[in-house]
Structure formats: structure tokens, C-alpha cells
């Protein structure tokens, strides 16, 4: 497999076949597509009637209704437009936890690539932003086959390592994304304080549809360590000696509390929140999400069942 294709595995592609990402809200696009546009247009999708006013195109007058009502009404149609998907990928140091496929960053890149594949496959636009405490890579939204390669190359080349500074960055991005889009945030959201929560709120406030993939390693969820350990911060220089057995209960409660808060904010802002365990294969995670989103049951492909290797 070419290195640029390592984030797009055949098993994942086969699992994602037939799935699409549709915008829930109206989005603004330049060309017609499968997504509801914020503009009324002349597509075949009838929307509503409105009283005729001088200047309206007389081709849109509903003469049948004029026959019944004796008044002129203009037929309005939904404009279907193309989708812009912006993937915001957290490449901070905290994402670099875990071994192999369970590494959060690797997992996030797999997730981003798969998502880009789905969207590009439905002829929509995909853009990518990699960030930690600053923007590490930016790929403007585009569509077509070359864009997939661009996405994969950016994912391949991008290296993070800084601290997660989500707040200012998301503020800036929400201002730069002028057209209403779907914004997918893939991150462990381990920023200090409530910075991540504020960023999520800011992104949704500007009309974008937000999907949050909260990526956590199973160690970070279960905290399975037994021996006393010295925990060294991946982003900070602080360290903490602790007896994991003594802390486990409180730790899990802290994780649950944080996830619950994020979830609550997302619900409030009509954003999707998905807590992702890196031990679950990307294909499974994504098909599950997309199926739920489209109101379909997730496709049951042979590969949908977790294999022993996947579980491992």
C-alpha cells in the first residue's frame, strides 16, 4: 500500500460503501448537489407558495392555484446544493497516546481519511485543518479525485506535538468559514479548563453543523493500571505519582463527568457528539454514526463484526 493510502484501508472502504453524509441543516454551496441549500432555487424540490409581487419571474406563477384562488402565487423550490465538509484534526501531543492502531492520532487520521472518502465520493467538498496550539496544516475545501490524495498527503505529513489550544483556533476558524458547512472536530478535547466547550459553542453559533468525534484511548477510559506509576504529562511538564487502584473510581467518574458535559453542550447546540474508543475499528465507528445519522440501520457486512484481531 502506498504510504499515502495507509489511512484508507480497503476493509474500511468496503464497509463505507453506500453510505453518505448528508447535511441536516441547509448549507450554502456554489453548485447544485444533494444537500438542501439555504437559497430558494428552481430545482424540482417544491418548497412553498408565496404571493406574487411585481418583478417575480412569471414562469413560476402557479396558474392552477390562480384558477382556484383568483390570486397570483409564486411557486418556490428548495435549492439543492453541494456540501462543504471541514475536518478539524487535533494533532496535539496528547493525541499521541497509544500503540499501533490504537494510537489516538493514528486513529483520528484514519477517521478523517474515511470521512473525506465518503464525502468526496458523493461529489461534495472536503477541507482539512490540522492544529494543536497553532495551525499545522490547512487544505482548502475542494472536490474531485485529486482532493482525496491531497487529504491523504496532508494527513501523512502532518506532525503535531504542541499543546492543545482549541479556543482561539476554533474562534478563528469559525470566522474564516464563511459558508455554512459541516465541521467535523476530531480531537481528544483534553484542553485546559472549559476551552474546548467554548470552542464548540462558538463553532455552532456561526451556523455550522458540528460533529464532534471525541477520541479517547481505552486506557484513558478504563484506567486499567495496577502498579503505582509516575504519570508524565504529554503536553505539560508536570508529573503525578499515583496508585492507580486507589484513583480508578474517581478517575472514571471524572471522565464520565467531562464527557457528559461535552455531550450536553453538543445537544444544546444541535451538534453531534460521538465518544470514540480507539479500540473500536474506524469502520465500525463511522458506519455506525453515518447509519444513525441517515436513519438507517448500520450495514451488516461480514467485516462489521469485530474480529478477534480488531478487539485486540
Amino acid at each position, binding site marked *: 500500500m502506498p504510504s499515502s493510502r495507509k489511512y484508507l484501508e480497503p476493509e474500511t472502504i468496503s464497509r463505507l460503501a453506500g453510505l453518505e453524509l448528508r447535511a441536516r441543516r441547509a448549507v450554502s454551496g456554489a453548485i447544485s448537489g444533494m444537500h438542501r441549500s439555504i437559497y430558494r432555487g428552481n430545482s424540482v424540490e417544491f418548497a412553498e407558495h408565496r404571493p406574487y409581487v411585481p418583478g417575480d419571474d412569471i414562469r413560476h406563477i402557479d396558474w392552477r392555484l390562480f384558477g382556484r384562488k383568483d390570486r397570483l402565487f409564486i411557486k418556490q423550490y428548495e435549492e439543492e446544493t453541494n456540501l462543504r465538509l471541514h475536518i478539524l484534526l487535533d494533532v496535539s501531543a496528547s493525541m499521541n497516546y497509544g500503540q499501533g492502531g490504537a494510537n489516538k492520532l493514528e486513529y483520528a487520521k484514519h477517521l478523517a481519511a474515511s470521512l473525506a472518502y465518503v464525502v468526496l465520493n458523493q461529489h461534495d467538498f472536503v477541507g482539512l485543518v490540522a492544529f494543536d496550539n497553532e495551525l499545522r496544516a490547512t487544505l482548502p475545501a475542494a472536490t474531485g479525485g485529486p482532493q482525496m490524495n491531497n487529504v491523504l498527503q496532508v494527513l501523512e505529513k502532518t506532525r503535531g506535538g504542541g499543546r492543545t489550544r482549541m479556543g482561539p483556533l476554533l474562534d478563528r476558524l469559525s470566522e474564516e468559514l464563511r459558508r455554512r458547512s459541516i465541521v467535523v472536530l476530531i480531537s481528544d478535547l*483534553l484542553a485546559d479548563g472549559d476551552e474546548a466547550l467554548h470552542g464548540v459553542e462558538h463553532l455552532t453559533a456561526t451556523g455550522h453543523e458540528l460533529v464532534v468525534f471525541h477520541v479517547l484511548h481505552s486506557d*484513558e477510559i478504563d484506567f486499567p493500571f495496577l502498579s503505582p506509576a509516575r504519570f508524565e504529562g504529554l503536553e505539560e511538564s508536570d508529573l503525578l505519582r499515583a496508585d492507580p487502584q486507589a484513583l480508578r473510581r474517581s478517575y472514571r467518574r471524572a471522565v464520565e463527568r467531562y464527557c457528559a458535559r461535552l455531550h450536553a453542550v453538543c445537544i444544546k447546540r444541535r451538534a453531534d457528539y460521538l465518544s470514540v474508543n480507539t479500540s473500536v475499528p474506524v469502520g465500525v465507528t463511522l458506519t455506525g454514526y453515518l447509519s444513525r445519522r441517515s436513519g438507517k440501520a448500520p450495514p451488516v457486512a461480514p467485516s462489521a463484526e469485530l474480529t478477534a484481531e480488531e478487539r485486540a
Partner: protein
Amino acid sequence: MTDGALPIALAFANPALLSGAALVAVPIIIHFLARRPTVRIPWGAMRFLREAELENRRRARLEQWLLLFLRCLAFGLLGLAFARPTVAPGVVGRLLGGGEGRARIVLIDDSASLNHARGGAVDFAVLQNGTLRIARWIAAQDDGGSLSIRRFSQPDAVLHSVARLDAGALPAVEEAIRKLQPRPLPGEPARALAAAAEAIRPLEGPVDLFVFSDFQRSDWSAGDAADKPFGPLVELAKARAAANRTVRVFLGSLGGAARENLALLDCTLERPRIVAGVPALLRIDLANFSRDDRRDLLLDILLDDAPQPAVRLAQAPSQKTASIAAEIVVPDAGFHRLTVRIPPHDGLPLDDVWRGALDVRSSIRVLAVHGARSTDRRQDELYLLRHALAPPGPLASGVVIDEAEVGELAGAALEQYDVVILANIPPPDESIARALQRFVRSGGGLMWSMGDLVGPLDAFERAWGPEGAQLLPARLIDTRTPGEAGSAAALRRAESSALGALLPGEGETVSEQVAFRGWVKLAVDPDTASAPATANAAIPRNITVAARFDDADRSPALVLAEVGRGRVLLYASTVDLDWNDWPRAVDGSYVVTMLETVQFLAGATRHPVAFRAGQSLQLDVAADAYEPTALFKPADYPESAAAPARFNPPANDATELLSLQGPRAEQLGFASVELTIRGGSAEERPLAVNLDARESDLSPISNAELSGWLSGVKHDFLDLNATTMTRDQPPRTELWRTLLLVAAGLLILEQTLAWRFGAAQ
């Protein structure tokens, strides 16, 4: 500690091992040594970790410190236990506020076994010193507690008591304790403890009962309360426990050192009656309670303080009894004092002497009555009896025999005789039967032998049986005369009976050379034979068949019974040669049997040979011979006062005995009783008092058995000889068992908490 100074509450038997308390550091060292090298984990989700750590920090530290503290405390107590800490009894109770007004009762064993001495020190002194220490300690405490001292010998009486023992009251208490002496009496712990329980019952506050004894097994396991000598005390203690009026028992013993002893247990006379000039056989029983055998023991015998030939005992095996026979000849009639001594080999001399009071008679007087003289003098019944009972020659049998015809019986002074033999006489008239009845009931012996002159058996039974004199021990069925068909029978000893220690063993032939050709078939009514002694003691009782013929019916040949205070014997054949040839038996069995029979029928003297110390002196005398008054003089009379006898008045029957009741025998030696013979003259008889044989076995009962008896009652053992009981220290309570238990409890608690804390994570 000096008198009056406060005692140290906590002391250590092994102070050198106090360093064991450093074990308290063990858990800390283990904590550091067991700290595993921490694993380095690069971690992203530090925010959750910090949050959890903040939440757990205070609780986790508290739990860890608590667990560490418990571990350290457990190990510290364990180390402390090695040093064997001791506290003065009651310290814990006082710390808990229970020390005020505590009553202390010391019950001290002053039984004879405490006379045992080791290395010149009498065991009783150990108990005495223990009591002194208790008294001094209580006085030093000055906690308002009381003290009363009681003895086993007189548990109902308080030897000394003070309501508040302080330094001022101490000298009088000490003097009373110092005056204590062991008594030659057996210990009666059950009685003493019952009395102590009664003394405790009305006390309001908590009570400490100190029981100081050698815990001699033979004392503590004896009597009706052998299985629960503490019975009343345990019940009382349990009843009081609920009301915070606890009873704690401290058992102070002499320690485990073995106490060896060689003891003269008893001496018994083989003949029930001793006759002057006739050798009497004395069996001497010894017991060797030592670890080693004793050999070549020379036993001294004194008769009225005059030495008699000594007896040598070849071996007294360890932990066993041994017997030896001695022959004594008392030259004249009257009361004599016999003393047997073993050399003083041990620390308890009280049981090295045995004393006996011998009532020696000048002879056994027999009246032989025959039905008719034989023409051949050598075939005559009386001739044969005389040669059997009083054979001519230099060796006296002690039997004097008088002869009488049947007709002479009416005027005979029967009270002069010990035994009457009715040899082949016809049924007597009623007056003679009544006279013989009185004779037997008042203690005389009567023997019938059968023969041709006995006449019809039904007439014989009417005269002597239930319708007549009520003396017959068996029914007469019929007569088997020598001319009847059937072979002759032999005589076999039927069963063990008091008759004749010299007769052959049970079931053996009395003589293999004798053939019985004729006899009267007898039948013993089994109901009568097994009937207990009833109010009408004048009918035959304790009926036994001493010998049977070995005919097909195994017909009884010699039937014995007691009637009143006398004895009767029915011999089913003839004493002459008419129905058998026994008198001519060359093995001498006829002579032996007749002598044994007369000895048995004459009965034992009523004068008791010996009393055991602790028994009440008692004597039966003929009411018609003595005035109902007597004076019992103790062995150390006149130092100790004499005591008048109490007596039970006899029934109207003049043959009744006068029972004289004296005081409790509390002195070893020869006491005496002064009697007044009717008519005015006085008679003094010796009464021998010996140590109770139970006191000779000095082996102690185990602490486990004592604990078993005290189950449910708080108790502790004090070794009065132990190092913790030095002269100046009060008896102290060992704490190491408690410490071990507490340490184990702490470790269990620590593990439980650790599990609980872990489960909560």
C-alpha cells in the same frame, strides 16, 4: 516495692526482651522495602488524573495512615508480649473505674497436704506469703477495698476481716496471717468454695476471690461435687455479671514442681476379733507417690509404745501401692494402742505413722449344745467340735468352749458367750428360742448343725422360722439321709462371703477327701436374700450361701445371715461323722472351717480401730452396760479441752446400742473416750486418729481442668513460686496472652479494613 509505696502497674518478666517492641517499625520498613519501582507512563489525560487525585487525596491518606497505624500497633504489641508484661491484679479494672470499693476474699487451703516441706520450707508458707503479699498490696493501693481471709478447714468462719485495708490496718492482718497453720485435715474445696460463694452473695460491688491451694487432685476431685467444685461460685458469678458486680477468681498454686511422698495408707486386721495371746494378722498398705522405687523399707511396730518385731518391705514400686502382712501377739486383754511407722523418707511426715486402737478379748467363748451324747466318745459331736475349736496343745486358738445339754439351755447365762452352737438338737421350747433370739439380736452368733435328732423339719421351722424365733436364714425342704440312693456329694465354696478368708477359693472343693452322705436340703428365698435392710432389722438379712453340695440340686450347705447385730449360720449336715466324714479329713479343713465360722459368728469388736482426721468421733456401747454419758478427749488433752458426748437414746429394747457422738477429730494421734460403766466405775478407751489417705497423694489437678470448671467466670492463675511473685511484689497478672489476642485482632481488623477500602475503589 516497699510497704506503702504504690505498686508499679506494669512490669516485665523479661525486660531484656523489651527491645521486641521495636517490631513496631516492621510495617514501616516493609512499607519502604515493598515499594515497587514506579512505572513511568506518558499520559495525556492529566486533567482527569489531577481531578481524581484531588478527590482522593485526603481519604486515601487517612486510610493509609489508619492501616499503617494498625499494623504498627499489632507488631508493637507482639513485641511487647515477648517481654511478658504483668500487671497487678485489678489494674485494668481500676483503669476502667471498677477498682473502687473492690472486695477481696482470700481462701487459703490449710489441709494436711500443705504440711509437705521441700528443702526445709513448708509448702503452706508459700500460700501464707502469697496472702501476706496480697494484704500488703491492697494496703498500698488504699483504694477502699476490703479484705477477708478464710480457711478451707473452717470456711464458714472468717479468720480475719477488715472493711478498708490501709496501712493502719495492715499489721493486724499480717499477724493473723502469720498465725495460720496447716491442719491435719483433708481439704474440702467444694465446701470451702460454697461458703465463699455465700460470703460473696450479699456484697454489692465487684469481688476478687483469691484461692490459694496446692490443688491436690485427690481433694479437688473427691466427694459429691467432684465434677464441679466451683458449682455454686460459677452460678453466682454468672448471675452477678449482668449487674456489673463481677467476680474474678485468682487461683494461686505452688507451681509445677513434683512433690514426692511415701505414705502408710491403712492397716487392717485379718481377724474381726483379736484374742489375747493368739497371733493376729495385720495387713499394712503403703503407697509410693514418688518417681523412684523404694526398697528395703523397715516398718516399725509398737504396741503400747513397746517395740515389736519390725517388718521389712522388699520393694515399694513407684506410683503404686504395696501391702505387707505382719503378725502381732497381744499378751493381755483390754484396749491397746498399736502404732506402725515407716522411716521418714519424704517431706510429709503426717502419713508416715498409722495408729490403731485394739479391743483385745481374753477369748472367744462358745457354748456348744448337743442333743444327745454318743456312746463312742470319739464320735461325739462336742468332742469333735472341742478338738476343732480348742485343740489340745501348746498353741492356743483363743476359743473357750463350754458344753451344755438341751435342757440346760433354759438356765444358761448366754450373755457370757460369743457364739452358741446347736448341734443336732430338736426344736426347743419357746422360752429357749426367745432367749436365743435376744442373744443373737444383741450381737451373739448362732450356728445350727443338722442330724437325726432334729426331728420333723416343719417343727424345726416353726420353732426357728418366721413363726418362731425368726432366726432361720433358709427353709428346710427335706432330708437326704445316708442310706438313700445316689452318690455322695462334696462341699464346694459357693460364693465370696465374709466367712473364712482361709477357706478355698470360690467354686473350689472345701476338701477333696470328704464325702457327704446326708444333709438337709435347704432353700434360700431369693426375695428374702436380696431384700434390703428394713425397719425390722431383727429378721435375717444379708443372706448368703457360703458353700453348696455338688449334688444335682446344688443344695446349700452353709447359709449365713445377719439378725439384729448378730449373725446366724445354718449348716445342712452334721458336725459329727453321722452324715459325713469331714471331722476326720486329714487335710484339716474341718478344723479350719469351724474356727473360721466361730470367728465370723463372734463378730468384730464394736470399738473402732481408727478414725480419719476430719471424721466425727463416734462409739457404740451396750446401753445396758454404760451410762449415757461420755467425755471425748483430744489427742493433745489437756492442752485442748475435752468435749462431752452427744448420744442417741436407745430404744426400749435393752439390747440396743448407745451411740455416743463426739467432736470432729482434728488432731492426729490417740484421742480417748471416758465412759461410765453402770454402777459408777469409769473406763477409758483409746481412739486412734490417722491422716485421711487422700491427703497423701500430692499430685495436683491441671489448670485446664480448673479452667473447665470455671468456664464462664473470669479467672487467672498465679504461680505463687514464680519469679513474678517475689517477696516484695503482689501477685501479678500475665498480659502476654491478652496482647497476642489483641494483636491478632488488630491484624484481622487491618485486613478487613484494607479489603473494605480496596473494594470501595
